[in-house]
């Protein structure tokens, strides 16, 4: 199985592994050797072989459940990680929704007082500046109209009416041209 790897481990190292099986090392020595065991596959194989032989010496059944245990624990950790991720993403989604709702609410509250004011009172109220009326040009025409209207009302003659209408039509034409 591991004859080549076994020889890679020094005799001293294997003796320490044997002593470690029996808790025959100082704590410092045990800590260092256990670190080696965790990091060195050949070292672990020696450790495993010694324990397998020990079990065989006692007539115990031989099992190797390490791979199965690790596969089960890996699957559990992957599942736990997935569940945690889903929960986290749900929380993030909820937080994002809550943030968006908060921003909307803040916006509504900020704009709410403005909704009751008249448009002119607002800072952005647009005022249209009309050009000044040409009162001096308009008034003589009104005077002319009223004078002709007064003449028509007092005289009430047909010939004058026609003339007045014609004259008014001319005036109106002039007004349109203005």
């Amino acid at each position, binding site marked *: 199985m*591991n004859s080549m790897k076994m020889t890679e481990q020094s005799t001293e190292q294997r003796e320490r592994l044997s002593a470690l099986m029996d*808790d025959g090392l100082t704590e410092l020595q045990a800590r260092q050797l*256990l670190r080696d065991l965790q990091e060195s596959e050949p070292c672990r194989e020696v*450790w495993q072989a010694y324990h397998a032989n020990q079990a065989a010496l006692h*007539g115990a059944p031989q099992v190797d459940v390490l791979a199965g245990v*690790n596969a*089960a624990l890996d699957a559990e950790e992957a599942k736990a990680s997935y569940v945690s991720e889903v929960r986290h993403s749900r929380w993030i989604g909820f937080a994002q929704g809550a943030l968006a709702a908060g921003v909307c609410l803040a916006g509504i509250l900020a704009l709410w007082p403005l909704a009751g004011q008249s448009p002119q009172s607002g800072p952005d109220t647009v005022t249209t500046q009309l050009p000044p009326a040409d009162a001096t040009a308009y008034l003589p025409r009104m005077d002319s109209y009223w004078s002709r209207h007064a003449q028509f009302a007092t005289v009430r003659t047909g010939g004058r009416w026609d003339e007045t209408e014609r004259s008014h039509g001319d005036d109106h034409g002039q007004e349109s041209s203005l």
Partner: protein
Amino acid sequence: MNPAAVTHTADLVNSAADAAAPAAASEAPAVTDRILVARVQAGERRAFDLLVLRYQQRIAALAWRYTQNSQDVSDITQEAFIRAYRALRDFRGDSEFYTWLYRITVNVAKNHLAAQGRRPFTTDIDDPTQVWPDRMQVEPGPAAEHEGSELARVVQRAFADLPEDLREALRLREFEGCSYEAIADLMETPVGTVRSRIFRARDAIDRRVQAWRAGETVALDERD
């Protein structure tokens, strides 16, 4: 396999056990477990791999005693470690890690059998201090016919072939649970020598196993 050799192995083990007075179980703190548990709790998944490698055979042995079925043993062992990993963040170290793991395994085994409408093969195993099945399953029978039985025979033969001083040091450690200091007292040797003997015994057994895996079974059988 040579049955005579197996019987010889068992005799060697049992006679050695009778000859040496059982010393107190190891009182060494489970430094290895404590360090690994702390690392797992700190988020180092790789540290849990070492706990699995360290205890999977013992947990399998416990599950075997409940079910006597190889597939059940694998399922229960795997499930026990998965549950242990999930619960490890709450483990405060009030008891030894293995004792805690043992209780988890018993619950998993009972639930596993209950889900299938079955009853435990035995109920007389609620003793976390007994970490291994009865000494050496060398007799043919259901308990010896699990996966790894052939490896067990190779290892046990290799153990029987060890030089006396190495075999005795390893036996005291593995079957009597003696600490290095206790073995040093019993064998009247320095602790460093005990550590070296136990290592050399394990290394010799492992070389035999590697040779067996490489297809040298025939050569071993011929020598037997």
